């Protein structure tokens, strides 16, 4: 009974297809991204106040928005970077949304996933945004450089282009080091090193990879979670890379349906939530092994994976939960959207006692 409880604090039904939601840093407000039935894109800004969710602002644009991030914007500016169904990357100042402050035709097809780094965490390198698209390419953008990506990772000419479903930044612990990890519909996971501009590691987990996240972006990479179709997720210990075996990992079954995404708690990196296709939400804790590194017979260092324990699970609705975002400012509060066109603010108690 002293497990954390997951409680739905507020629910808000909308007339939109909701794809993503993000807390606005340093505020009690969040944005949701989606599309209207006629296909136009919408950015809504909500504020929570006394158990209710109030709509503050609605912005409508011609193309439906798929994803967004505040990762590359400074705390003061909080500019929202979005990817839309047409493959365009835009950065918006939500105070003035007449025109985006940055715009690039990033991809030929829908941008499935976006992630940003370098904005909020102080002095950890350049602000950069990474986008992953159905056209199979992963591109890294710097808001200070107009119209051109600073790095492109795509299959060679003539190779099969797999649908890139998810991208994530990590390992950005000083101004040089940075890693981009991407997951594809055929189960490929690729890890690119932006410092050396090379493919650092890749693997295949058999099922399409829906979500990837490092437990922290701004530390020497520690662990990474990848969620897949067919109700499985993988936890990789990315601290130690063995030259042949790669990273140690564990597999966990959960949700009995596609696991759409994983989000680590900003206040405790060993706790993360996974969202399932059946509207369920699971809260996990990663337990480190007594020793994290061992060496094999050749003397190469090899990681040892720990275990995960399920802290709590709950079913929020009957439709897939498409997005979830933990508040960076207040521990235990999160916002999530699902395909039943509803925004939910959830509260998780007792996180500080774990």
């Amino acid at each position, binding site marked *: 009974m002293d497990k954390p*409880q997951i409680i739905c604090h507020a629910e808000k039904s909308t007339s939109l297809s909701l794809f993503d939601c993000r807390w606005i840093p340093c*505020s009690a407000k969040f944005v949701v991204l989606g599309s209207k039935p006629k296909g136009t894109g919408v950015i809504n800004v909500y504020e929570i106040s006394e158990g209710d969710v109030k709509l503050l602002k609605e912005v409508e644009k011609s193309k439906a928005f798929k994803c967004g991030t505040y990762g590359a914007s400074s705390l*003061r500016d909080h500019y929202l970077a979005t990817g839309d169904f047409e493959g365009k990357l835009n950065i918006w100042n939500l105070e003035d949304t007449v025109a985006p402050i940055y715009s690039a035709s990033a991809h030929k097809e829908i941008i499935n996933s976006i992630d940003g780094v370098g904005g909020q965490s102080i*002095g*950890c390198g350049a602000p950069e945004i990474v986008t992953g698209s159905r056209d199979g390419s992963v591109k890294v953008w710097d808001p200070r450089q107009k119209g051109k990506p600073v*790095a492109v990772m795509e299959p060679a000419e003539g190779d099969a282009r797999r649908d890139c479903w998810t991208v994530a930044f990590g390992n950005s612990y000083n101004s040089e080091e940075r890693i981009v990890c991407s997951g594809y519909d055929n189960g490929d996971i690729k890890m690119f090193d932006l410092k050396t501009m090379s493919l650092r590691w890749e693997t295949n987990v058999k099922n399409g990879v829906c979500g990837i996240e490092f437990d922290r972006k701004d530390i020497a990479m520690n662990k990474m979670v990848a969620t897949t179709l067919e109700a499985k997720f993988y936890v990789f210990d990315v601290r130690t890379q063995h030259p042949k075996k790669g990273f140690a990992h564990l597999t966990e079954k959960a949700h009995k349906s596609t696991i759409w995404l994983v989000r680590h708690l900003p206040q405790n990196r060993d706790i993360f939530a996974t969202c399932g296709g059946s509207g369920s939400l699971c809260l996990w804790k990663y337990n480190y092994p007594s020793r994290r590194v061992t060496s094999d017979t050749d003397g190469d260092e090899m990681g040892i994976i720990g275990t995960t324990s399920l802290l709590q699970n709950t079913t929020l609705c009957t439709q897939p939960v498409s997005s979830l975002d933990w508040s960076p400012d207040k521990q235990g509060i999160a916002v999530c959207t699902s395909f039943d066109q509803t925004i939910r603010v959830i509260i998780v108690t007792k996180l500080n006692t774990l």
Partner: protein
Amino acid sequence: MDPVLLQKQVRDNAEDLRSYMQDLKNWEADMKRKESELQAAASSDQALPPVRSKIKRVSQDQNSTCNAENQRPTRISGYDYASWDKFDVDKACEDLDGARHQESAEGDDDTVSDAEEKRLREEAIYEKEMGNNFVKKQKWKEAIQCYSRAIKCFPYDAIFYANRALCYLKTDDLRSAEVDCTTALQLDSNYVKAYQRRAVARVGLGQLQEARSDLLKVMELEPKNMASKAELMKLEKKINIKPQPKAVEESGLAACSQNTVTKQAENTSSCTLKSKKSQEIYTRNESVMSHKEIIKEEEKVISHISGKKTTATKETEKKVKCSTNQEIMARQREESRMLENMMRKEHIWPIYGEVKLVHTVHKPPHLRSKKPLKRIDIREVDSNSGQELGMDTKTCSSGATSVEIKSPQIALGSDTGASSDREQNTKEFCKSVDAESIEVKPASEKMNSASQNTDIELLSEKELEDVPPIPNTSVQFLIAWKKVRTNSWLSYHYLKKIPGADLPKIFQDSLDSSTLSDIICTIKTEFLQFKEPVLPYIRGLSDVRRFSALAMFLSESDKKGVKKILEYCKEQDGYKECDDCHTMNQICLLPNTV
């Protein structure tokens, strides 16, 4: 569960939630206040590293211009007057200007003309001087502002970043300092001070390994930098928890001077004659040797070039006195600069990080070394391996395996003379076994190929349990035999289990020639080796019905085998009993008659 406890926990949970809600309310209010504050606050200037692609472009441009500089003098030779006549100087100048314009046009959104660029650079330098003055007065904040302005004017000078990094260090803004140093190093990768400062910043940030690599780089660039050396020692002590593999340390030391490396290598190589890991060091030694050779080569080339140059200039000075003179001078200067570069390169040749770069050397065949390549002695490190080898050959005594064991030793030779007696013994043993097996030969080949498994010596009693039970019928025998026949050891034990006299009963009249030849083969190789009595088997076999017919179809090798077995029988048991098995004797006679 205790209902009272349950009730209490439910109440606790509710209480938790209520307090959380209260907390949340406070937080909401708090956030609103903070947000408005943040919007009012002035922007804090924070150093950001440059855009990723821009760094690359700058360095590429530098490279390409360098290349162009290097290439230009070699493009048309000084004696090639015809082509110099055709050379359009104006056009070349125009091209050059055009390229520069293009460069500045792509470079930034706001295109800057040449004159303005010059002005901006001067302004930047002025700002830097101001900054330096502030630094002398230890007014760090003002200095940072000056350097920031300088960077704004001219962002491609590493010095500005490095100086600002120093100021950040003094004001304890380690992150920014680290970023600035990185930027400076991206602009100039041999900037020692930037490495030093970044190391300090990284130590402050707790990134010890990175700091260490920075300091190692400093040592590489400036081996006599005592301050950094001391710093490095301190840092190494700090890291201490996890000492790096030796190779890294050695490479670090190697940075200090070439001589020490060679000495070290010599030392180690002399030591290792005693030690067992000789192979590794041999290769290292060799690499050092080749390294030296390369350097010598380069020296030769350089002296060659310089020699050529002087003669060339003399000649040209004689012949040409007017217009081209200046060009030649310029080219000479260029060349000497290149030479200098090369010389300098030689000084900092050996290490890039932890990797030794070994460049390919192209030598014409007549200059190549006539010395034979060094042999590398590869030995089993395991001390009881020799014994195992012996065991191995004894037990399976198969020609193929013994050859296998022998061949590496032959290939390696024993030029060190250090190989142990035991090994030599085994070698001799192998040879003898080999000879024997050649004598015995062809029939066994089929078996050998199947029974090469070198793990035979590991076959313990436990595995003997795998030997099938004694058969009652030919079908049982054949099934068991199929399992066993690939392993000579097992098949030997299986046959031994069966009493020879029972063979006719088991086979009745269903013995076929291939099984027969297998059995003969096993008896010949295994039984004879272990001096087991074979007479009952011979008798049993010859008593099997239709044996005489089968014997007709035996292959030449099998017949030889039978002959050998019979000779062995005679040795052991005397002629008398052997005379009993007429049919067998007949077989032996057959080859002569057929």
